[in-house]
């Protein structure tokens, strides 16, 4: 059984103008110890998926259907107190895009860490301090004793994200949700954070859901990736399959729209804009922008079906399997 099973998750934002169906039936599994990427553009629902799983959605957002099972236990049915006692921080931790904003600005890094250890793991002051030093060492912060007395504003972005990761790991979670953990950091720092996440996964065996708009970054760490478009999964599968032979026209277009050195002529683009979810297109939500669209696409929502070379794709008229991939088997 998978560690986390999300099935037919539906989340809406109830606005004065009407119901915004931000997640329209998202299903996915996370196995123990795997890194699953959730990729997509602004408004695709990747962050809302994470916030729905850990039930941190703010008004006017609300989960309106589906199940989120951790070891078979439905998190959506859990009482708030049980969620806080047993799940958040303990089983599932989360790190965010702006680490300096997520940390308490008027408390030292050390106090924030020891507080968690004292409350959640029942440690006394000395043990908590010793453990805090160990945690900082585990995220490769040099001179941890000195860092413990720093305030968040004294930290660089990369350092603050390491501290966030240390905090998230304090109670040995089995699943870490990382919401754009490297956005806003410099390229070299981004790479270091990704390396750190990879190393921690290997060492602790925790699973990671990595939410990102950066496909290149996802390629560095994810075992599998789910590409979201307008609140639905377009394609999900092992990262090598999807990058080497994307079958959904949206995935394919997204991968092709990367600028790079030595590219001649215009970059490939996707026609049109992301749909308004107040009034999404019927059938496949990508169909008005799709170069492969058939008549059926504007009527019938395509199911997420298994396809070669080993992914699941929601498309009536997928891209052909790339030759070199087919040959390799």
């Amino acid at each position, binding site marked *: 059984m998978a560690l986390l099973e999300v099935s037919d998750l539906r989340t809406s934002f109830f606005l004065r103008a009407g119901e915004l169906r931000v997640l329209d039936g998202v299903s996915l599994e996370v196995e123990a110890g795997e890194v699953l990427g959730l990729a997509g553009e602004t408004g695709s629902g990747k962050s809302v998926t994470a916030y729905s799983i850990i039930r941190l959605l703010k008004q006017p957002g609300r989960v309106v259907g589906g199940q989120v099972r951790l070891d078979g236990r439905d998190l959506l049915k859990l009482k708030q107190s049980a969620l806080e006692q047993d799940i958040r921080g303990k089983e599932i931790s989360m790190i965010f895009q702006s680490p300096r904003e997520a940390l308490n600005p008027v408390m030292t890094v050390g106090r924030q860490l020891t507080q968690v250890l004292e409350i959640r793991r029942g440690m006394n002051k000395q043990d908590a301090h010793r453990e805090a030093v160990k945690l900082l060492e585990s995220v490769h912060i040099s001179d941890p004793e000195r860092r413990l007395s720093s305030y968040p504003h004294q930290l660089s972005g990369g350092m603050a994200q390491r501290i966030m990761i240390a905090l998230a790991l304090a109670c040995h979670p089995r699943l870490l949700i990382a919401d754009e953990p490297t956005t806003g950091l410099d*390229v*070299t*720092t981004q790479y270091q954070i990704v390396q750190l996440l990879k190393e921690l996964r290997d060492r602790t065996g925790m699973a990671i859901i990595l939410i990102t708009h950066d496909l290149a970054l996802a390629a560095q760490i994810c075992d599998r990736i789910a590409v979201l478009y307008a609140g639905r999964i377009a394609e999900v599968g092992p990262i*090598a399959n999807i990058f*080497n032979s994307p079958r959904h026209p949206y995935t394919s277009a*997204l991968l092709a*729209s990367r600028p790079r*050195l030595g590219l001649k002529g215009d970059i490939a*683009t996707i026609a049109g804009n992301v749909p308004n979810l107040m009034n999404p297109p019927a059938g496949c939500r990508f169909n008005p922008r799709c170069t492969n669209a058939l008549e059926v696409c504007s009527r019938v929502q395509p199911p997420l079906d298994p396809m070669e070379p080993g992914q699941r794709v929601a498309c009536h008229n997928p891209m052909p399997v790339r030759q070199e991939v087919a040959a390799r088997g």
Partner: protein
Amino acid sequence: MAERAEAQTAPMATSAEAMLTVENLFKHYPIKTGAFRTEKVHAVDGVSLTVRRGETLGLVGESGCGKSTLGRVVLRLEEPTAGTLRFRDIDLTNLGARELRRLRPKLQMVFQDPLGSLNPRMKVSQTVGEPLLLHGLAPSGEIRARVRELFNRVGLSDELLERYPHELSGGQQQRVGIARALAPNPEVMVLDEPTSALDVSVQAKLINLLRGLKQDLDLTQVFISHDLSVIGYLTDRVAVMYLGQIVELGPTQEIFLKPRHPYTGALMSAVPGDDLLDRRTRLMLPGEVPSPITPPPACRLAPRCPFVKDRCREEKQVLRPVSANHEVACWRAAAGEISTEDFERSRLALDV
């Protein structure tokens, strides 16, 4: 990367007219570090470069390296602390407010945050028409038609003319910012991270627009970005900055494929190549960027550089030529003691 063909020669002949000339430019910001103590942030610390007609110069480096400050100072949106600035053969450094205003139409800027840089109380057509009106560049009867033309040029539909900035998407807002900058027919345009706040698919369209503009309008551009993939695609030459100084300057192809400075080597090593799934270890520099308040006295990379020698801690580094149009501020690289192959080797040594 190493097996790829020898880098092309610079597309820009050195004979083209110098549009912007920067000589020994400094920009320091005083900051209070105690009740009675003031120190200086060395944002730009002795930069010299020339941007020639029709070329796009990329300015890259990590946050805090001074690239945005340099971009604003070269247009004199901020006053330099020391150094000279020239636009063609006009000395900008000591130009009075009045003369500067007369030149302003020729020197335009596009900012990173499209919404923040547009007047929220003005319809976007007014925003785009404003420079024409202020500088008396078009008779008031013709402004509407000219704005319409600019809208078409940047791919905005006429329906959006009477909208306010908050009614537009991020991509549309950035197009308005570009149209406003283009309105007075500039000769030099500085673009500060114009695509950074946008989604991949929106970004791709905007990059195509910028590329088209460059080809059609004979614009000279300075393109500031931390996104090296965009820089690799859009620019002719690249200046790499570290702690307020240029450490390497050369043709884009060469900077990407044959970096000479260890800092450039590390930066380029972090760029995703054609094979996104390549997970080999990258060349990493240990530690963090030192504070620009107290930068290392000699070579600024010395405390982090894997190739450091005693001389690096004693002698300030200046740009030295390594090939045609290619300069590097590292004596070891200039002497041929370290090269791109060494970066590759030290990267592979890490890959176990």
